[in-house]
């Protein structure tokens, strides 16, 4: 008779992805709008999040999902320039992404997309977002400070409360969705405040929220 189960019978414990939470002044401001106005159109540019869809649709808003970071690393965007070097085709990127003929958004959740997207796509993407937002619409974006370091992991932000976010590390699946290693994303650059102001120069106003965790939150009004 065996009284105690041998430890060798047990499967090794699965690694549970670590989830962190952070308080977000930016999402707090966005929530104020979401709670006070009905039937808003919200564009979430992170990977598909059940939390966010629930948060938004429970309040009666329309939620649009588009994983822009995944689209930005699509190998199909690579083209050979006339000088023989490979580069990304920003025109093709805009033909395939952020195409909304019948929608104008009241809120755009950019998260820290701009920090991880290839440089050549950042400004065209922000310009396109300007064109699909309503006047006075809000755009929330996060930017790392230099203290974050180049190996700072890319997070998916799930809205868990009026001003609370859960952070889940993002590793992109291979484009084929077949077996294979997941791609870790690397911080591409650190924007200074002046660069951020330039990036959003066509917008009406910009507000910075400083946080303790090496991330600046930026709330921009169209």
């Amino acid at each position, binding site marked *: 008779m065996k009284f105690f189960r041998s430890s060798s019978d047990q499967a090794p414990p699965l690694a549970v992805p670590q989830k962190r939470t952070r308080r977000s002044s930016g999402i707090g401001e966005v929530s104020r709008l979401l709670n006070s106005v009905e039937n808003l159109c919200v564009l979430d540019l992170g990977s598909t999040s059940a939390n966010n869809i*629930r948060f938004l649709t429970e309040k009666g808003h*329309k939620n649009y999902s588009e994983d822009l970071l995944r689209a930005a690393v699509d190998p199909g965007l690579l083209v050979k320039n006339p000088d023989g070097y490979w580069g990304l085709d920003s025109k093709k990127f805009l033909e395939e992404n952020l195409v909304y003929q019948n929608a104008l958004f009241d809120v755009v959740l950019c998260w820290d997309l701009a920090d991880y997207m290839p440089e050549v796509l950042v400004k065209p993407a922000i310009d396109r977002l300007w064109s699909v937002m309503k006047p006075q619409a809000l755009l929330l974006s996060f930017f790392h400070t230099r203290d974050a370091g180049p190996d700072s992991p890319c997070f998916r932000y799930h809205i868990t409360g009026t001003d609370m976010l859960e952070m889940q590390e993002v590793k992109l699946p291979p484009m084929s969705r077949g077996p294979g290693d997941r791609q870790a994303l690397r911080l591409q650059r650190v924007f200074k405040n002046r660069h951020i102001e330039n990036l959003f120069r066509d917008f009406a106003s910009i507000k910075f929220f400083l946080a303790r965790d090496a991330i600046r939150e930026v709330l921009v009004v169209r």
Partner: protein
Amino acid sequence: MDAPLTGEFAHIGKSVVIKGELSGSEDLFVDGQVEGSIELRNNKLIVGPNASVKASVSAKGVVIQGTVQGTVNATDRVELRKSAVVNGDVITQRISIEEGAFLKGKVDVHGEPGKATVPAAS
């Protein structure tokens, strides 16, 4: 539910290609390619893991494990499983999305606000 037992659902296997309008009054499991439209007014559609559906879909309930390109309209419920890839709008009363599912499009959960259910990703 991954693959329903034969007999419970009408079955379109993974080697089958259909172009055109597909409608019916029984539950349907699609694991092949469909291009056009699928309409099952009072029944359930399961899009299997091997399926590639380029169609507007209208059913009572829709479970997606494979790829769908087009508008998904369910009078009751939509479930996106972890292998789901959806390029199109989803209009439904209730939706559940597993971690890893991919959705590019609008989610419009109609019905009374507060009664919409989107279970958290597992």
